[in-house]
């Protein structure tokens, strides 16, 4: 019987290792499309515009003085809550406290926003 030639086994082994490495790189590329797509979708699905709209509307009301605890304009408050719920199935709320720090002269409006559209729940406290 002819003797089995076992010379140069490390060349075969290196070839195999390289092949396996390429295999794993291919796996990374394979996942890249899926990961990129779901990430982009996640970013787009966040209701950024809706929250900013609510925010800017509340700030507008602060500027016109319609939202303070002592003199809240209940009709406007109700308008926003009802319209968001009826037309967009979104639960929103807001409250504004006028803060006047004694002695320092610092004034700001402690604004709390709540937003929940069933997918995204978002709460923010803004020192406007």
């Amino acid at each position, binding site marked *: 019987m002819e003797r089995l*030639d076992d010379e140069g086994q490390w060349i*075969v082994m290196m070839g195999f290792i390289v092949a396996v490495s390429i295999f794993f790189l291919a796996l990374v590329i394979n996942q890249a499309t899926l990961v990129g797509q779901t990430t982009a979708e996640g970013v787009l699905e966040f209701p950024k515009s809706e929250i900013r709209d609510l925010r800017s509307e509340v700030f507008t009301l602060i500027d016109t003085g319609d939202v303070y605890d002592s003199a809240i304009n209940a009709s406007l408050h109700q308008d926003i809550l009802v319209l968001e719920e009826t037309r967009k199935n979104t639960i929103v709320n807001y409250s504004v406290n006028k803060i006047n720090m004694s002695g320092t002269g610092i004034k700001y409006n402690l604004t709390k926003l709540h937003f929940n559209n069933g997918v995204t729940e978002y709460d923010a406290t803004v020192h406007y």
Partner: protein
Amino acid sequence: MVDDSAQLYTMEGIAAAFVILATVYLVAGTTSIYTPGDSHITDMQLEVLGNDVLLVMDTPVNGTVNSTLHTNLYEWNGTAFGEDFSRLLNERVDGTSDSLSYNATVSYRKEADGSVANYAFNTSGIQTGYEQAVRVTRLATIPGKPTGAPADFDTREQVVMLEVLIWRD
């Protein structure tokens, strides 16, 4: 007698075949096929575009004047709103126009019974009911009842919601 020489080459061949097969499978799987279920991605892009247009229209040019959107609503001028909205929506960098259509509605709350009513503000054309539309909205405060608003529109200062459906023709 069975010849058992070169067994190493046989094993190598099998291993190589496996690696090639697996790689081909991975490469083929990397391409993504656009299915009807993926159309919500373009819908979301359309929403971003619509929200941008409304934001631009609701931004005053300086601190002393009202925004275009606010003025259009307070003057109850759907035509003026439509012209601006359509222009901003369909403007392309190369000067040509895009083919996006819209249908704008104003929703307002009635204090008497707390219900919400809608008013067809402006539209770019006749709808068939088969449009793949997305919806964008914007809240606006108007100081009183505009001239030309429906009879059941409250006279108080109020927040209304402008709702625009956008679709590609």
